[in-house]
């Protein structure tokens, strides 16, 4: 069966994380995503391969020789794409990039504002090559405005957008986000922008530039907090905010904290074992759920009529949480999750990365980490799509390309480069950086083609 985006072609100039993550989903959905690479460490590893190759930073598995093709994270992030190497700062490289764009539907990149323009690939220049091209740029501040030249990484996007501030416990520094949430979510908005613009192109034939700002993407996620400010004049620099894991911090005004209905209990509790991730979240959004929890705990004497109402539970939240904690710590987190859910109480184990892969029965049943193969790494679990499409299945059945894996089919097959030129280009800094030893598989692929 076909995938939903079959027939579309994407030129992928992305690097680091947010851009590659956006293009990954277009590839899984069936677009021919061509990752254009230049694996020269001197320019910061524009491919992401070199950055990840710093000892101690990467995720090359034990027993696999470290190389630009050995990183596990890269394998997951660039699944299902094709790879071509060309030097975009050479005249020939730029010419070929333009030929590629002429055969593409979408161009996507997440460099700082102005980088593609400096290569000679501004949006008007792309339109001259391909009038209905969709161009998605993903700079931190976007391509216009007084601070368009400011640079960001995930943590600064989160800080500037307000997301960092809304994570934490009153009286402590912000806890923030323990990973680049906005590289994931910025990636989502890159894919959202591409596919939304595609809808317009399908209807009208018109392409456009989607000028994404990752900081703005983060700011859209704070709507109720911003409206509380603009409509009610209630700011976020206030007592009891952010409220940790609570809906309302004990002893502070019972106002909404932008995480849904006010509820109590609404907290995490330490479970048996006491390890770093031995915790369970428990939430009672209704009095009936509280009664169910109370019953599950064996109707203890402390859980008297004071706790029968939400107001009462909020008024005695610390006492309630201490008592629940004392009960919870006798249980293993998954056993307790099952026990409470069976009793009608919303509860869930706090899951680590290991837990999700090894211990989450739901993800396992849905095939979330089914394996796929990579030319050098072999077969490894991949992160699959969170959807099942009845008409157009989208399994992740191929890992990332090795660097330049598709040079012959793209450069010679699509762009009219002769095999002689390709061979010469491997030596003269056009198709491979002079500073990097040429990978033998590139020549082998070329020889196989000549034999054929």
């Amino acid at each position, binding site marked *: 069966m076909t995938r939903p985006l079959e027939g579309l072609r994407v030129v992928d100039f992305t690097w680091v994380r947010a851009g590659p993550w956006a293009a990954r989903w277009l590839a899984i959905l069936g677009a021919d995503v061509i990752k254009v690479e230049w694996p020269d460490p001197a320019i910061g590893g524009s491919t992401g391969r070199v950055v990840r190759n710093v000892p101690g930073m990467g995720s090359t598995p034990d027993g696999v020789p470290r190389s630009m093709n050995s990183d596990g994270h890269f394998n997951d*992030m660039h699944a299902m794409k094709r790879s071509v190497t060309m030097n975009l700062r050479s005249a020939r490289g730029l010419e070929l990039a333009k030929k590629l764009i002429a055969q593409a539907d979408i161009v996507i990149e997440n460099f700082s504002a102005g980088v593609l323009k400096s290569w000679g690939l501004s949006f008007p220049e792309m339109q001259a090559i391909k009038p209905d091209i969709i161009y998605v740029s993903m700079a931190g501040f976007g391509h216009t405005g007084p601070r368009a030249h400011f640079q960001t990484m995930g943590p600064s996007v989160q800080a500037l957008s307000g997301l960092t501030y809304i994570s934490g416990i009153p009286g402590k520094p912000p806890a923030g986000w323990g990973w680049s949430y906005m590289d994931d979510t910025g990636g989502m908005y890159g894919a959202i922008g591409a596919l939304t613009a595609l809808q317009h192109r399908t209807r009208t034939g018109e392409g456009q530039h989607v000028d994404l700002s990752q900081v703005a993407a983060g700011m859209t996620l704070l709507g109720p907090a911003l409206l509380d400010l603009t409509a009610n004049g209630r700011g976020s620099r206030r007592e009891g905010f952010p409220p940790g894991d609570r809906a309302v911090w004990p002893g502070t005004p019972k106002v909404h904290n932008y995480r849904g209905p006010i509820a109590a209990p609404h907290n995490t509790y330490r479970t048996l074992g006491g390890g770093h991730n031995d915790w369970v979240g428990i939430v009672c959004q209704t009095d009936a759920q509280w009664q169910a929890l109370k019953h599950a705990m064996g109707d203890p004497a402390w859980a008297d009529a004071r706790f029968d109402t939400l107001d009462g539970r909020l008024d005695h939240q610390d006492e309630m949480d201490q008592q629940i904690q004392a009960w919870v710590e006798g249980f293993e987190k998954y056993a307790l999750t099952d026990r409470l859910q069976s009793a009608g109480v919303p509860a869930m184990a706090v899951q680590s990365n290991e837990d999700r892969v090894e211990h989450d029965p739901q993800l396992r049943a849905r095939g979330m980490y089914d394996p796929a193969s990579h030319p050098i790494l072999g077969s490894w679990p991949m992160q699959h799509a969170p959807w099942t499409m009845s008409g157009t299945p989208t399994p992740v059945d191929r890992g990332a390309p090795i660097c330049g894996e598709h040079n012959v089919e793209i450069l010679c097959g699509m762009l009219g480069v002769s095999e002689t030129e390709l061979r010469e280009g491997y030596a003269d800094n056009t198709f491979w950086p002079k500073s990097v030893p040429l990978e033998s598989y590139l020549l082998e692929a070329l020889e196989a083609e000549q034999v054929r």
Partner: protein
Amino acid sequence: MTTDQSTVSGPLTGVRVLELSNQLGQWCGKLMADFGADVIKIEPPTGAAERQVGPFYADVEDPNRSLYFWHYNTSKKSVTLDLDQPEGRDLFRRLARTADVVLETMPPGTLDAMGLGYESLAAENPGLIVCSLTDFGQSGPWVGYQMTDMLHLAAGGQMAACGYDEVDDPERRPIAPGGGNGYHMGAHYAYIATMAALYHRSVTGQGQHLDVSAHESAALTTEMHIPNWIYTNVVVQRQTGRHAGARPSAPSQIPTGDGRYVNMGGGLSSSFRAFVEVMAESGQAGDLQDLKYLDPDVMQENTDHIRNQIAQFVKTVPAETSYVAAQEIAGMPWGIVRAPDELLDDEHFRERGFFIDVEHPELGQTFTYPGAAAVFTATPQQIYRRAPLLGEDTAEVLGAVGIDASRLEQLRASGVV
């Protein structure tokens, strides 16, 4: 107050969506509506439960005054239908014949039991795309579990990664970041899947059923944490205001002279030396002007020392001073940790048209809303109208499928609408 679809010129113009959704799906529907789709929110006659979620305008609880509902339901229409009554289901079916997409978040099996499942609706409209966004998808051992925003953050791995160093929180408890992001993640994936299915339909004419899991969406949203486990068996540990990691790393969220915080972003690059010149102006450069740091290896070996020295300086000046210097002079990707309160004054995003004033005529007020993540040069994302009042568009929408005023009165009297 009506939305005239003939004047709408967004990228999704011409796409009609029936939204039968709780808090899982309202963000997905809002994106579609602000992009110009005709999104009809089907609510029970008593109103969607999200209308009961605060904060409320002027703290007055009312189904039409929830700021939470306002934000997540801009540009949509509201039609009330009681799907527990046969006439309500019949009207839903009639609307589904006119729709391109049904976005629904009911527990698995609910729509089938009502006779409104994908197979049944598609029999009358083969191009229809039904996107079912649910906590766990349509199958699996946890399907019956009751979830909330925070519990998704627990299951998805977010909480395991967010928290504090021991010095800040001896318990090192996992923290659930706020803002409803447990639901945003599933909404983003549901939106992407729906757009892809629409494209496929434009080529083949075929609709389909999309089974989207909020849990799987969250489990995908921890950057490299899953590959870290798969390839290197690393379990990450929480740290204050920075990435969780296998080993402790130096703080990167630094208090400033004006009581705020600056995040020093990613790794250290050689451009830090330009920032040292700024530090030197007030005699705070320490030894960082030493030429030995020109050597990239020496710089790498002394990363913690350099960052600590920079942090000492950051603590003495206002956040804006060190942030702007880092960006303008050294090109370092720093950010001020801004409270939502501070966003409105941002000249950069004002100039990009991020903030949108939205009229609430029944209140005689106009309020500023957050706008679009991206500037679309041809078809901008807009807020066409404030969130609908409960049932505001029932007469118009049902009128278009043959329900005249007298029939509507009968339906109202019997509680169907």
